């Protein structure tokens, strides 16, 4: 039997996630002219997950893209995860994806062609699961490979959920556990079990579809998804966009099994340090928060969960329904929204 191609062998041994540092990105973007149009409901200004354009009173388009180098060895699984991650930006606005384009960078000289097919098949199956259609794509020759999607979704303009709507008094609900960055790094360095790593893979493949539907049902006031900037980085962007501050209890934040141990052994990816630098003095930790937890809230997530800001009257039911769906921790209340304070995030 032919040995299966290991996609992780194509990327530099470094374990640092591929996203450009957030601070650097903001600096570059701040110098570009901002498009304004009354039909543009969400632009780059609030660093939201996707652009949103109102077509008429019943429909707004959600348009987004995301792609990255391999996060796992298996081509099919990589395709699934990259697609779930790209689709998530539509879900983070409360929308439903309609159509997607494949974005692929792949060198046929360096990697067997069937790997190309497997990545696309994984992506295609995930898009189908989301009820959307792959309608084409674009490939260029490049190494190491990268894959992702550009996705169009829709939402009723009145139901749109942005990252700028969190209100003081709301509770914060997180729908997936933290620690995918830690476990990917742990697997590379032999510091976690195969079972723990598989659990992280399964979570990364999971669509945020149901979370988005429930968010609309319970009229959450603000939402974002947690990806490369980590829980702290994305929470900070959401709080800033909403002109509020967040208070979060680290003891309540769900962690993937094994993630803490990986950090305890020192296998902390470079991206975690970059994210810590990005949030900087905007984040306050009380003395009781230990180092590994402080780093885990900065761990870069791939295809992470939704962070919702929800009226306390609806939070209980929302969490209940999320957990009916995924008893292993589909929704957890991790904090609350405060009036804008001198700092943006307060962890304890």
């Amino acid at each position, binding site marked *: 039997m032919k040995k299966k191609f290991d996609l992780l062998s194509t990327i530099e041994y470094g374990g640092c996630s591929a996203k450009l540092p957030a601070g650097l990105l903001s600096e570059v973007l701040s110098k570009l002219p901002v498009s304004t149009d009354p039909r543009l409901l969400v632009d780059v200004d609030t660093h939201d997950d996707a652009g949103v354009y109102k077509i008429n009173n019943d429909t707004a388009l959600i348009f987004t893209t995301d792609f990255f180098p391999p996060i796992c060895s298996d081509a099919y699984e990589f395709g699934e995860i990259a697609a779930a991650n790209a689709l998530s930006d539509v879900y983070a606005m409360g929308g439903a994806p309609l159509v997607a384009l494949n974005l692929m960078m792949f060198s046929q000289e360096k990697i067997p062609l069937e790997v190309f097919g497997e990545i696309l098949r994984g992506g295609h199956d995930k898009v189908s699961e989301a009820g959307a259609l792959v309608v084409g794509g674009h490939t260029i020759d490049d190494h190491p490979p990268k894959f992702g999607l550009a996705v169009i979704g829709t939402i009723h303009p009145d139901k749109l959920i942005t990252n700028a709507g969190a209100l003081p008094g709301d509770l914060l609900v997180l729908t997936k556990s933290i620690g995918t960055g830690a476990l990917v790094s742990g697997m590379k360095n032999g510091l976690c079990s195969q079972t723990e790593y598989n659990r992280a893979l399964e979570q990364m493949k999971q669509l945020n579809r149901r979370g988005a539907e429930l968010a609309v049902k319970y009229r959450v006031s603000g939402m974002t998804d947690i990806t490369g900037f980590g829980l702290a980085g994305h929470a900070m962007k959401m709080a800033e966009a909403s002109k509020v501050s967040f208070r979060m209890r680290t003891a309540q934040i769900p962690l993937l099994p094994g993630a803490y141990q990986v950090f305890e052994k020192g296998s902390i990816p470079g991206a975690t340090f970059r994210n810590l630098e990005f949030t900087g003095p905007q984040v306050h930790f009380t*003395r*009781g928060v230990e180092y590994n937890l402080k780093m885990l809230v900065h761990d870069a997530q791939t295809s992470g969960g939704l962070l919702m800001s929800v009226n306390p009257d609806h939070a209980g039911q929302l969490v209940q329904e999320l957990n009916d769906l995924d008893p292993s921790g589909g929704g957890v209340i991790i904090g609350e929204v405060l009036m804008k*304070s001198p700092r943006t995030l307060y962890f304890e």
Partner: protein
Amino acid sequence: MKTIDTKGLKCPQPLIMLKEGLLGLEAGETLRVETDNNTSLKNLVSFLRDQGVEPEVSTSGKVHTVVTDVPEKELEGTNPAAYCSADGSDNDYVVCIKGELMGEGDPELGKVLMETFVENLKLQEQLPTHVILYNAGVKLAMKQSPVCSALTELEELGTRIMLCGTCIDHYGLQMDIGVGMISNMVVITETLASAGHVVTP
């Protein structure tokens, strides 16, 4: 001195090796780590500072050498000044500041006493877990307050400075807040009720 050679290795390998290296040493001993990776150097220093030690870094050619004291074991995973008041200790206390003045009598005197009290808090061997300010007490956390910097220092040391949001609204101080987390009565009540003990000046 024990030396860990991480040359040629990229993150997070040097940090893993540093943590392994620390395991075999006692607090106060010295450890040397060599790396030729700039990112790893930055991350090693960030980690060590978080453990409460200040490493010395020297660079020769492409190789950086980090020399560090071994941090106190108990300090691992916490903030430096923090150790004596780690969460859950019996001596935990919350400071509750109800107004601008300390004690009854001459308001001028009360003001001076309160300022001295707040300045002295950060010098305590055991720091408070929280400082709660309500009613006119919130004025102490405003930018123009003479103790704003003392409260900021306490916050840097990991004490949660908690302000009553209703009180800030009442006095119309939204634009003047210099330090602290704006909170509500639910959180304040919960914090006071679960405090080891409450100190009121």
